[in-house]
């Protein structure tokens, strides 16, 4: 047997799909933060889901073991992905389906568009799917004269509102009932003009509209949550039943699935079907779990096509740290617990994959430099890691990708930057001590300025003294100086610093083995600042 080297895997191509935003995260976030309604909707929705999910997770006594099992299955999948995909292809083909391999978004869009064109239909119904959002399939279909109709209620709201999804699971999380009513009144055909914002009335309006579409559209496009390699079974997990309508009523079903969704055996579904609903919607069991294997004569779609999508996934797989991101089961738990996502919402991330998982997945799918601001869109607080049902170490990956960005930058520019200088300084105690003295001076200056509010009410100095009220709202963030708020300590101490250099006064013993002889000008230790007598070893005398 011979093998051919095909080169390193490529990242998702530019100019197609929705993996790249038009602005870096900080700028896009600024826009979201300035929208009070959005902030309110997000806070309400994420708080509700978090509480619901935490309650049902607490009931599952083997939750941690389930997480371990989920992580182990996914790690196993990644080590033998090519083999499992070929096994899946064989099983699906055996069951009467047709498997297509799409290297990227362009190829996937072309395959699906051609398959739809072959049916002669000018309309497709869609099951909610991240993969088709990722590749921009709706736009590709529209360009080919085919109308895609989203049937997931939240996706429908997004589609009718000419909007973009802002959450993996709840695409219209940024909208409240009142806004949804307005969108329906504006964009839904034949809607009752007396529609209220009652959730049941809104759902009924969507139901009336969608029912007609289900019954008269011969082609459906779906994604997939899982594919079982051994049996060739595909699985879609949803809450409304609209997905099941799409999966069973039409003559032709086309499923677009990321290659990382494959699991080895039927039994592996046991683990994920317990993990997913509790982590995502906070339900014990998922309401509609549809599974199908190829084609069944006389029952359901009589033509089934599976499009296996790479679009940068092989490149992610090639990174032994980064490949953890492919373990994701799209539950959104990390979004719901993320303090950054809760403030900014999904649009700020640019990509269809928002939140912590988006911050590690999008830059890997596109190549780090096309989404360089995303790994920095996190405080590394770690809430996402704790919440992830398959234990993806998101903070570790964020740091890994930050390092990848720095490396990419270094290859382009000369490495003369502040952080290197800081590292150099910190490796040289004399320089370090000097820098510390300088830093203390800025603090003294801040304290001095804060101590004289009446004397500098206006004029140039007013801009530098922080006496004007600081508003921590989004608006305040735009024209205020939150950076300085955080970078500068509060002027809470104000005292004489006459003993500033009195380092010998402390009496604290130095280390057992001082690493180096003391150099001239290096303080015996830097604790010796302005309140050195406090540090005397034998208590009492200093305090």
């Amino acid at each position, binding site marked *: 047997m011979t093998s051919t080297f095909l080169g390193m895997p490529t990242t998702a191509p530019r100019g197609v799909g929705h993996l790249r935003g038009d602005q870096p995260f900080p700028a896009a976030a600024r826009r979201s933060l300035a929208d009070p309604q959005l902030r309110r909707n997000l806070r309400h929705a994420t708080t509700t889901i978090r509480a619901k999910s935490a309650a049902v997770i607490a009931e599952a006594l083997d939750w941690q073991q389930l997480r371990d099992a989920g992580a182990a299955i996914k790690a196993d999948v990644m080590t033998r992905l090519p083999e499992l995909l070929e096994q899946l292809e064989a099983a699906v083909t055996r069951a009467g389906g047709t498997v297509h391999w799409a290297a990227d978004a362009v190829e996937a869009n072309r395959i699906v568009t051609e398959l739809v064109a072959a049916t002669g239909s000018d309309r497709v119904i869609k099951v909610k799917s991240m993969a088709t959002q990722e590749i921009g399939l709706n736009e590709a279909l529209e360009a080919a004269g085919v109308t895609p109709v989203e049937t997931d209620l939240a996706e429908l709201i997004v589609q009718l509102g000419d909007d973009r999804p802002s959450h993996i699971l709840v695409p219209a999380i940024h909208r409240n009932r009142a806004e949804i009513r307005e969108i329906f009144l504006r964009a839904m055909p034949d809607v009752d003009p007396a529609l209220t914002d009652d959730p049941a009335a809104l759902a009924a309006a969507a139901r009336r509209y969608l029912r007609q579409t289900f019954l008269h559209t011969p082609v459906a496009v779906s994604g997939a949550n899982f594919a079982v390699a051994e049996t060739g079974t595909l699985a879609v997990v949803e809450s409304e039943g609209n997905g099941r309508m799409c999966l069973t009523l039409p003559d032709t079903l086309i499923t677009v699935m990321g290659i990382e969704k494959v699991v080895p055996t039927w039994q592996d579904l046991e683990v994920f079907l317990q993990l997913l609903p509790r982590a995502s919607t906070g339900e014990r069991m998922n309401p509609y779990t549809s599974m199908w294997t190829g084609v069944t004569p006389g029952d359901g779609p009589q033509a089934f096509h599976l499009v296996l999508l790479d679009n940068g996934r092989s490149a992610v797989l090639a990174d032994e740290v980064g490949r953890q991101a492919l373990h994701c089961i799209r539950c959104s738990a990390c979004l719901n617990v993320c303090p950054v996502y809760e403030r900014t919402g999904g649009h700020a991330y640019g990509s269809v994959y928002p939140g912590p998982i988006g911050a590690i997945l999008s830059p890997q799918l596109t190549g780090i430099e096309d989404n360089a601001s995303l790994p920095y*869109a996190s*405080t590394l607080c770690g809430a996402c890691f704790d919440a992830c049902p398959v234990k993806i170490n998101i903070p570790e990956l964020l740091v890994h990708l930050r390092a990848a960005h720095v490396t990419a930058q270094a290859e382009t520019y000369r490495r003369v930057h502040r952080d290197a200088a*800081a590292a150099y300084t910190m490796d040289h105690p004399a320089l370090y001590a000097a820098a510390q003295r300088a830093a203390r001076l800025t603090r003294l200056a801040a304290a001095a300025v804060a101590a004289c509010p009446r004397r500098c009410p206006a004029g140039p100095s007013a801009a530098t003294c922080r006496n004007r009220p600081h508003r921590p709202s989004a608006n305040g*963030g735009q024209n205020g100086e939150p950076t300085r708020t955080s970078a500068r300590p509060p002027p809470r101490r104000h005292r004489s610093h006459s003993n500033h250099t009195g380092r010998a006064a402390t009496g604290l013993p130095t*280390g057992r083995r001082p690493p180096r002889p003391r150099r001239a000008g290096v303080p015996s230790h*830097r604790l010796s600042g302005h309140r050195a007598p406090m540090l005397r070893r034998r208590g009492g005398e200093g305090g």
Partner: protein
Amino acid sequence: MRIALFVTCLTDTMFPEAAKATVRLLERLGHEVVFPEGQTCCGQMHVNTGYLDDALPLVRRHVRTFDPYDVVVAPSGSCVGSVRHQHAMVARRAGDERLASRAEAVSERTYELSELLTDVLGIEDVGAYYPHRVTYHPTCHSLRMLRVGDRPLRLLRRVRGLTLVELPAAEQCCGFGGTFAVKNADTSTAMLADKMRHVLSTGADVCTAGDVSCLMHIGGGLSRLRTGVRTVHLAEILASTEAP
């Protein structure tokens, strides 16, 4: 016990009160505190910003400085988290396996203050007196990297005169995140706004935590809003006594 103080660069440079309080507290409890010279920064800010190569000499320096000591304490959950979870990784990434195992050994002997007091010294009542209404913010790295759990609360509950009030949504990040506060200032400030809202809702006059970095962020906001709520490091509370 002979305890080496890992002062941390931010505490030493900007908030030496917290370090002094740590020394005062441990000495009052009858321990010897030594200050190893040559210590600078653990390298966390370099690692977390992506400059892992630049952090390597700092890791080397930290390991060399603290290797001789049996017990190391820092008044910071974040910096101990860095020592415990990042140092070996930085060394391994640079292919220095020997440094990695030395770093791991040092990290096993390095404790955050509340860990040292409760786990190593086995003490919860440190004999402190602090007659204030206090709320505690569990910093993210203490909470999720070190899993200090309720150790700080156990210590605070035993402080005489202190009224401890629970902080709503305590486990949510304050928005500091090191350079996050600089690179994503608007988002950081939005997070801070909610944290301050919760602090103010407690009616506390002091907000405490185990990290000066988070306290710098929260305290900066509270002082600019003229709220009258102070931020004080846990060590300063525990070091306070009736008769100074």
